[in-house]
């Protein structure tokens, strides 16, 4: 018990020392204690003072559960004790949280807990409300890594970058750590009594003036709780605001079907995919699954055909066979014409043709023909940035093509009580401004002061609310206006539940006690239901007790084990587009198009959720901040992205600041500043500004909070996704940290052009068409020169045991960044900050190169993930003076950190430039939170040493050990066989399209061996005779002959001849 007290004392001291707090818990008690001690006795710290019995009493009163609290200054020994105890008990009872909270060292080693061997728990992580089933890796009670849950339909084992980075948010020291009331540290019981009093006062009024604002909610428990509150307080109201939610899509559904539904695409069955301004493979609740299906279909011999029509480059475009670049209004005209062409809508009756450009016309005809030829086996997907009318047409086209029920499924909405978020927020703001709201709960990190449309002026209205309660992971713009701030528990530290894109429910189980004083959403809501001390565990279990079939204990364990509730998908609904809806939509679009065409040179600003920090919620996450955006390769900032032609016309240069003005409704004029980035492939007269940046300085407790430019300042509730904008030059320079071609974008784009031409000349991204590949399977190999295997001074290595290799299919890489984030999490890769990225020193072991090809105004775009090539003839190995990088007997190019003296010769001599050097001390080797985050199987590198991709050597060794244990009885002969598929690298495991395979190339059973035997397989820069172990499968396009006539045999042979000539010439 003594040790128990000890920890408590420490916790309390920590609590009162935390930054940003005003007064300690009970100053009077402390002062009294001090007064008594006045004289020769000096007190040195609050710790000492806190050792008094009075203080301990106070703690017991205030924090009855304090023993489990996680102080930052905890010693290793205490940590192990705590971690051991909590995990041990959790393991014994099948992942349930234990009420016993005594701290005792192991007396007997608990089952399953073996130091050095991680445990995996099935849980779920949500993004914008929707769940993705994951497996969380836990080392002695510390979650360290997120993997996809192979049994979960939304994941199938893959994840996205957001989920990979979630682990960092858990240990983020800038998270809010204590409850606060009016900015001063407060207690949970204080909060509970405050809420209780307020509710009691409102009881007779039926809860008039009580409002709840949340983001998208899919949690059944949470929904039940809110409904319970609404039942008790009939006049209360539940509002929703999801800044980047499917607002237009929802409106379109209501227009088309008269009700909200959930749309699911099955890309595994779609022969033709038409993406209209849509990021269907990288954004949205089902994108991970969509990527998986897409990848599977595209890898088959009868690969699909993808068209992407868009205003600016999307991830879809990088894997599309055809890409058409149009301004937003013209996209809608295209869609209307397409609807007419496939018979989803009749002629608009406006007289003039919607599409006049012959090229676009040809596109309409070709796409329509292709779609009609694949009735029931095609998908037309529309992006949220389209108008509701256009999205109605998307549904109509899918309906007309007979895709509904085949490749397109409509189900009951997954969101609890789906409502029009914009209208809800508008109403709430109006009521607040009118003084009708006196108690507001902002639940789950919703941050409307920052994210609400600029015309609503939410901040001003919020000030009129008497009792406002903000609940979130961070103190943010909104929390500053609120009386209460309740720190939220991370999803890895609290119980909950949520639904995936298809409705499947997962129970979210914690892997660790809350590090700070975080409370989950359901625990906060429980205070409104008079159960302030109810643990999340009880609340979730209470909900499911009546809903799981069979014996509850068995069923509950099954749910926790599987990570999902079986057969809980949303029920399909049968809806058809209302007869006149499509027609009305076409007419509407026609009018809008005429109007837009009248504007001529006016620039349209398009808002998109940011590919790395989404709507701003991930802004504090430095992994995501430093993740290069898939197309611009910018880090730490968003930019006003425009095309080269528009830049030229407006006289804008890269990194130049401009003032953006959107003329809103009434007399409202919205302005913000931004800096320009020129992106080839951005349609003329359009600009993109992603959401989530430009937040108030230190918005989330970090100095770099204010990076980028605030798109929300230009966003109004009636123009959520695009608005006409005026651009005025300010002309200051704002440096952008770009990870590719640092500073190379000169105004004329010459440098970019040079880089893309050189990439083509050097056969960096090899490609062909499906027809050409069928005609000549060797077409890819002929594109480069491959030296003979024995062309080396040194004798070839022999690999009697394993030989590790990797292959990456460029044809299905969408550049989504999941692999990069997974690599960062797995390998303890440090973040270096904007300044260091600017200096060209980013540390990612795996990078995704992006190349443009062809006309810079409308280029083809390629992604190419580049890890270490693990060359057989590695140029780095020869030049290292101290043998810090050397060849393993399994073909790995090993990096020995503690032997490295840092000459950097290896990096200079690496043709692929995959080596990364710790120029400064990048890794946090001190803070205890960082220590908890690190993967214990991977060294944390010090400054002055080189590092690089190791093919996740720690996983290889783990698998070898396991294989050896399995083979324990077998005679000691050769290496122990690792079962096929038992070993995955972190990047491979996370990849949503499964574009990366890894394994033993000595064993033909492994998929990687089969990929390497493919005729598309080639090595990057293989003419250097480095003989890379990482190889690529060339891109194969499946063009529509109507849009791209196959090159006749004559021109084909000449181009072949040319490459032949180059080859022989280079050889001589």
């Amino acid at each position, binding site marked *: 018990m003594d040790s128990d007290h000890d920890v408590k004392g420490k916790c309390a001291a920590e609590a009162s020392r935390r930054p940003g707090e005003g007064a300690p818990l009970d100053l009077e008690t402390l002062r009294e204690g001090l007064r008594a001690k006045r004289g020769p006795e000096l007190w040195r710290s609050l710790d000492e003072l806190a050792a008094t019995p009075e203080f301990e009493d106070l703690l017991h009163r205030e924090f009855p559960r304090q023993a489990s609290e996680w102080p930052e200054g905890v010693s290793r020994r205490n940590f192990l004790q705590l971690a051991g105890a909590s995990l041990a008990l959790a393991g014994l009872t099948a992942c349930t949280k234990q009420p016993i909270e005594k701290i005792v060292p192991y007396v007997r080693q608990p089952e399953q807990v073996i130091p050095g061997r991680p445990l995996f728990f099935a849980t779920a992580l949500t993004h914008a409300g929707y769940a993705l089933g994951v497996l969380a890796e836990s080392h002695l009670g510390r979650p360290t890594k997120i993997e996809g849950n192979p049994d979960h339909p939304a994941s199938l084992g893959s994840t996205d970058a957001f989920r990979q980075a979630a682990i960092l948010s858990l240990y983020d020291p800038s998270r809010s750590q204590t409850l606060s009331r009016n900015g001063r540290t407060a207690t949970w019981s204080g909060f509970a009594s405050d809420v209780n009093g307020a509710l009691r006062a409102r009881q007779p009024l039926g809860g008039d003036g009580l409002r709840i604002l949340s983001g998208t909610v899919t949690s059944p428990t949470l929904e039940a709780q809110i409904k319970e509150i609404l039942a008790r307080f009939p006049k209360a109201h539940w509002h929703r605001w999801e800044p980047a939610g499917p607002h237009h899509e929802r409106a379109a559904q209501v227009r088309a079907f008269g009700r909200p539904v959930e749309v699911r695409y099955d890309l595994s069955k779609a022969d033709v995919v038409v993406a209209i301004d849509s990021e269907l493979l990288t954004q949205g609740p089902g994108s991970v699954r969509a990527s998986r299906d897409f990848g599977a279909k595209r890898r088959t011999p009868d690969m699909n055909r993808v068209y992407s029509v868009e205003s600016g480059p999307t991830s879809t475009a990088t894997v599309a066979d055809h890409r058409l670049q149009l301004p937003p209004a013209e996209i809608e005209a295209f869609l209307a014409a397409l609807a007419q062409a496939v018979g989803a809508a009749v002629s608009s009756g406006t007289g003039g043709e919607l599409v006049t450009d012959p090229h676009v016309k040809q596109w309409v005809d070709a796409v329509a023909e292709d779609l009609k030829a694949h009735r029931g086996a095609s998908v037309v997907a529309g992006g949220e940035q389209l108008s509701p009318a256009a999205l109605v047409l998307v549904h109509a086209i899918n309906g007309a093509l007979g895709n509904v029920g085949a490749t397109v499924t409509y189900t009951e909405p997954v969101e609890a009580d789906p409502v029009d978020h914009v209208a809800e927020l508008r109403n709430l703001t109006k009521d607040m401004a009118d003084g009708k709201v006196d108690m507001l709960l902002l639940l789950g990190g919703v941050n409307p002061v920052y994210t609400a449309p600029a015309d609503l002026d939410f901040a001003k209205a919020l000030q009129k609310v008497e009792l406002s309660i903000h609940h979130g992971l961070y103190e943010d713009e909104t929390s500053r206006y609120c009386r209460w701030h309740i720190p939220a528990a991370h999803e890895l530290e609290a119980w909950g539940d949520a639904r995936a894109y298809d409705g499947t429910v997962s129970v979210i189980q914690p892997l660790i006690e809350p590090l700070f004083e975080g409370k989950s959403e359901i625990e906060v809501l429980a205070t409104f239901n008079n159960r302030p001390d109810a643990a999340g565990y009880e609340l979730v279990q209470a909900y499911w007790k009546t809903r799981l079939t069979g014996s509850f204990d068995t069923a509950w364990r099954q749910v926790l084990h599987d990570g999902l509730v079986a057969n809980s998908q949303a029920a399909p609904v049968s809806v058809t587009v209302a007869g006149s809806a499509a027609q009305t939509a076409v007419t509407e679009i026609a009018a809008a198009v005429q109007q837009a065409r009248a504007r001529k040179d006016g620039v349209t600003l398009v808002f998109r959720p940011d590919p790395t920090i989404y709507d701003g919620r991930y802004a504090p996450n430095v992994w995501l901040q430093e993740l290069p955006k898939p197309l611009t390769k910018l880090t730490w900032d968003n930019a006003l992205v425009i095309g080269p032609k528009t830049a030229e016309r407006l006289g804008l240069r890269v990194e130049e600041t401009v003032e953006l003005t959107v003329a809103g409704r009434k007399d409202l004029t919205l302005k913000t500043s931004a800096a320009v980035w020129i992106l080839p492939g951005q349609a003329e007269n359009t600009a993109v500004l992603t959401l989530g940046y430009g937040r108030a300085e230190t918005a989330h407790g970090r100095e770099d909070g204010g990076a980028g430019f605030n798109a929300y300042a230009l966003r109004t509730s009636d123009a959520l996704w695009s608005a006409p904008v005026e651009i005025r030059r300010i002309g200051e320079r704002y440096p952008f940290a770009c990870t*590719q*071609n*640092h*500073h190379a974008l000169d105004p004329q784009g010459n440098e970019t052009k*040079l*880089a893309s031409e*050189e*990439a083509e*000349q*050097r056969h*960096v991204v090899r490609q062909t068409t499906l027809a050409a590949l069928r005609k000549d399977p060797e077409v890819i190999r002929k594109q480069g020169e491959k030296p003979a295997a024995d062309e080396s001074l040194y004798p070839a290595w022999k690999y009697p045991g394993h030989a590790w290799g990797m292959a990456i299919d460029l044809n299905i890489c969408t550049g989504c960044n999941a692999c990069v984030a997974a690599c960062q999490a797995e390998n303890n890769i440090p973040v270096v900050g904007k300044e*260091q990225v600017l*200096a*060209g*020193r*980013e540390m990612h072991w795996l*990078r995704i*190169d*992006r*190349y443009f090809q062809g006309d810079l105004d409308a280029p083809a775009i390629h992604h*190419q993930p*580049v890890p270490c090539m693990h060359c057989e003839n590695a*140029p780095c190995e*020869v*030049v*290292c*003076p*101290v*043998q810090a990088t050397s060849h393993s007997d399994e073909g790995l190019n090993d990096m020995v950190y503690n*032997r*490295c*003296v*840092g*000459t*950097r*010769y290896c*990096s*200079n*001599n690496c*043709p*692929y*430039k995959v*080596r*990364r*050097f*710790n*120029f*400064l*001390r990048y890794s946090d080797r001190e803070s205890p939170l960082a220590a908890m985050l690190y993967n214990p199987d991977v060294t944390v590198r*010090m*400054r*002055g*040493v080189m590092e690089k991709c190791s093919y996740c050597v720690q996983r290889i060794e783990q698998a070898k050990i396991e294989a050896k244990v399995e083979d324990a009885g077998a005679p000691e002969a050769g290496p122990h066989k690792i079962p096929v598929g038992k070993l995955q690298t972190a990047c491979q495991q996370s990849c949503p399209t499964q574009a990366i395979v890894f394994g033993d190339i000595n064993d033909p059973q492994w998929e990687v061996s089969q990929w390497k035997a493919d005729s598309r397989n080639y090595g*990057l*820069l293989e003419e*250097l005779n480095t003989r890379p172990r990482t190889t690529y499968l060339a891109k194969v396009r499946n063009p529509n002959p109507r849009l791209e006539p196959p090159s006749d045999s004559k021109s084909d042979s000449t181009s072949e001849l040319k490459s032949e000539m*180059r080859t022989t*010439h*280079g050889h*001589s």
Partner: protein
Amino acid sequence: MATPDDGAALQSPEKPYKVPIVAPGHTTATVTDKISAVVQSRTPRWWFIGFGISFLLLMMFLNSVTWLLWKGVGIWGINQPVGWGFAIINFVWWIGIGHAGTLISAILLLLRQEWRTSINRFAEAMTLFAVSCAGLYPLLHLGRPWLFYWLMPYPNTMGMWPNFRSPLVWDVFAVSTYATVSLLFWYVGLVPDLATLRDRSRHRFWQVVYGFGAMGWRGSAKHWHNYETAYLLLAGLATPLVLSVHTVVSFDFAIGIIPGWHATIFPPYFVAGAIYAGFAMVLLLSIPLRVAFNLEDFITLRHLQNMGKVMLATGMIVFYGYMTEFFFAWYSGNHLEQFTSMNRILGPYKWHWFGLMFCNGVAPQILWMRRFRTSPFWLFVVSLIVSVGMWLERFVIVVTSLHRDFLPSSWGMYAGTKWDWMTFIGSMGLFLTLFFLFIRFLPLISIFEMRTIVPGTKGEPSRGSEMTEVPQ
């Protein structure tokens, strides 16, 4: 070097290279007096000023090195893909400068070029100090400099040898051998002069100090015999080093596979470049020195002109090297080589390249004209330009090859930071500080060797046992 007017020039006493290597009127006594006076007279004011400035620069060097060790090499401008920057550029630059000293003292000695006698002592000192500066850079540029000794083969508990395939290990041997031999050569040459200074010193302190350095030299025939043998042997040892050191340094690049580095022309043209840069530095030092210490009688126009000629010759070799690189880039048909060559001329570092061509290729051409070749002022200017040019050459080789190599996705830019510049300029402070100390406390011209070439003592300086008659 025979030009058509050689014969005429030889007849004319005004022609500079007819100027004797020691001005007329000197006897062995005046030579000894004059050179010892530099050390033994009162310290001139300009010395304090010069030393003060050099010392401040040295402090700047120490300051930037301290910060470097504290923070890491990230304070420099190096990055991905340019992993080597100022440190390696400066290393090659300094070590190149050193070469002239060795060439003058060893090769010209063996070739019996008597004019070398006036300049070999301070040229050797220059070598030593340049190598000291150069040697620091490979240590400082390490990510973990405290582990530098891992590059050396020594028995250790880790059971690890260095990687003998790596040119950086060859560098360790080449540079350390070079530094050792240079030091020995310089010191052995100093011994008789230290004895002279010991004998001429009036103060007990200096008698002890110089006496200590003279290692009991009494000038006996046996001493002279041993001395001459040792000196010749060392000259023989040092001679191959003139060629080998920079050859090995050039391997640092030539062994790499980076286009722009991977070239067989590197060893000869690096050696020529080193001699080129070295003679430029000897000129930069000797021209002010002869004025400051009134040594025009010993370092005559003939010396300056000879050095100008060596510069012109080696400069042409270097320029030929540049052209060969371009020729072979074109002739190889290798796209990457061609791209790298074109990128040097047209890429973002084109002004560095044009600067290099001007400094190393164009500017020295004025040395064809005797008017410039015999003008200390113009020689000084050309030497300055050549020194800048040789630095630019290393910049172009190191940076432009790395900044755009194989994969366009990894292309980047490089620029030195203020710490790079402070370290570079600071290392000049180290060099100058050592040099100022040298000219103040040691005879900057070999006294005893000068005595052998004073007109009248002997027509030809001859070496070996018959030189015992040299007066004490």
